């Protein structure tokens, strides 16, 4: 029983990390990406390959995930410098769709649909095993807190202000001397590396990855977490991640719902929540007011 809740909590923490990263893009910089699952996936593959072929040390694997996602996130930064708003959403959609095909086709690296199986249990400092879900959960919690700390340090200070300025008016931000290209790129790289780390932890948690976990649906799910909790708030993405990770689990505990309809019901609830939230509380559950954004 405890193990089950640990596994759910672990998943919530992993999604929490990814959602915090997406919030840097969406909430702070106004870059509305629907391609977050791409970088979640890139991190997962990078970590899994590192674990299988080199060492399952979690720090090394997360480092690899960070490095690879940081480089590949430039694919997202590039359109972000070219277009804004609706155009960028569609561009990120395009990236997500192309990446899904690439994940499937780069079989030498990703194993295609067959995926990568047999990802070893992680260790830390080379020897100490993190093989039990509880240990992995504690490690992930540590990473989450670290990630929150970094976000807090960045977003509450000049970097956050500069991103906010860009989000609200790019031209005016330039006029007060902000290097918009550099700032946007930094924000995209930073946000995507969170997804990369989350993906690495995900790979260790599930111990098997294939492209089905990195689809547009997954991007939509992470985005919903951010929006549900409150884009631009510190804790909103976490609240969203916890709720949306636990929702399906909670629904299965409801006796009156026939199991065949759980999936449909769950989707229905997701969708309806998004619609109602946008109408009545667009700032999210944690967001301060409804008028903003």
């Amino acid at each position, binding site marked *: 029983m405890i193990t089950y809740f640990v596994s759910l909590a672990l998943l919530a923490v992993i999604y929490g990390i990814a959602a915090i990263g997406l919030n840097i893009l*969406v909430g702070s910089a106004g870059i*509305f990406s629907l391609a977050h699952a791409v970088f979640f996936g890139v991190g997962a593959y990078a970590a899994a390959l590192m674990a299988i072929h080199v060492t399952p040390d979690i720090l090394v694997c997360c480092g690899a995930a960070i490095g690879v996602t940081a480089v590949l996130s430039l694919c997202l930064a*590039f*359109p972000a410098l*070219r*277009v*804004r*708003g*609706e*155009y960028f*959403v*569609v*561009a990120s*959609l*395009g*990236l997500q*769709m*192309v990446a*899904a*095909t*690439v994940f*499937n*086709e780069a079989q030498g690296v990703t194993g295609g649909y067959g995926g990568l199986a047999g990802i070893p249990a992680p260790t830390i400092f080379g020897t100490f095993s993190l093989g039990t879900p509880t240990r992995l959960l504690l490690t992930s919690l540590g990473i989450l807190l670290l990630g929150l700390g970094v976000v807090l340090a960045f977003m509450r200070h000049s970097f956050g202000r500069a991103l906010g300025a860009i989000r609200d008016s790019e031209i005016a931000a330039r006029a007060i001397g902000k290097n918009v290209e550099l700032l946007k790129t930094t924000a995209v790289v930073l946000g995507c590396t969170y997804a990369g780390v989350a993906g690495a932890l995900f790979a260790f948690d599930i111990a098997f990855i294939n492209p089905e976990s990195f689809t547009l649906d997954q991007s*939509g799910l992470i*985005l*919903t977490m951010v*929006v549900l909790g409150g*884009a631009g708030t510190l804790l909103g993405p976490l609240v969203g991640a916890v709720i949306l990770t636990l929702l399906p689990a909670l629904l299965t505990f409801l006796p009156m719902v026939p199991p065949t*309809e759980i999936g*449909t*019901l769950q*989707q*229905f609830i*997701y*969708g*309806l*929540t*998004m*619609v109602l*939230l*946008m*109408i009545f509380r*667009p700032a999210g559950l944690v967001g301060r007011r*409804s*008028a903003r*954004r």
Partner: protein
Amino acid sequence: MLVIQIIIAGLQTGLLYALMGAGFSLIFGATRVFHAAHGATFVVSGYAFVTCLKLGLPLWIGALAAMLFAVAFGLLLNALVYRPIQRDRGSFFTVFVAAFGSVIVVQSAMEFFFGREPQTVGSSMTRSVEVLPHLFVAPIFPIILVIAVISLGAVASFLRWTSVGLSLRALSDSPSLVEAFGLDPKKASNLAFGIGSALAAPPAILIAMTNGINPAAGAHVMLISLASTIVGGIGSLVGAVAGGILLGLAENGAIAVFDTQWSEAAGFVVLFAFIIIRPSGIFGARITR
């Protein structure tokens, strides 16, 4: 012959994207609503059609029902979701997330009522005949061609020749003009949603006949239509049509040139290229935002 065959296949899918894209473009131009739930309209319309035919009703009643349901759904969504959000000066993103949510609601509702497997209506019109050696064309292809030309022509001439249409067009140039044209903004947005949604009915009917329609089909068609609208240039009817055909050709052409599994990605690669090189699309005005 393979080339011609692929061009025909590309045209057939491209025209359907074009109709979807044109509807989307019209709505976006006139109301600035990024109507990502246009795909949900498509699904509702398609199921209305299939259900009518499964009930044994004649084709024209099915088509009429598809049209009615599409328009009704578009108007409903505008009234219940978009307008309340816009009243609060919601950002485009708020609208987008709400639209995204609506797509999921419709999809799961359809799954609940109709099941997930594709629904199709058999018809001899979709069965290809060999018109030239090795060149197969289904009777439905010319029908699609005619329907697409008629509906796009009708919408284009409406926008060009009627005063209401002119004002809708002016709206996309400068939204502040709406009252100057003596058009009630609420009426204008309903008009755009009505016409735009009606344009989703022909593709829905035709896809239901050729491919079969399933609850998840809307999201897929919408993605590609969105891409085609951007490639063509948002807000331009001609652009949406050109973009749709271009993407239809790219998708099918990729099958001929590259390996078959790249066909889906091909459309999005074209999209990505446009966003990087020419974000305003083929016919779009320069983006100033």
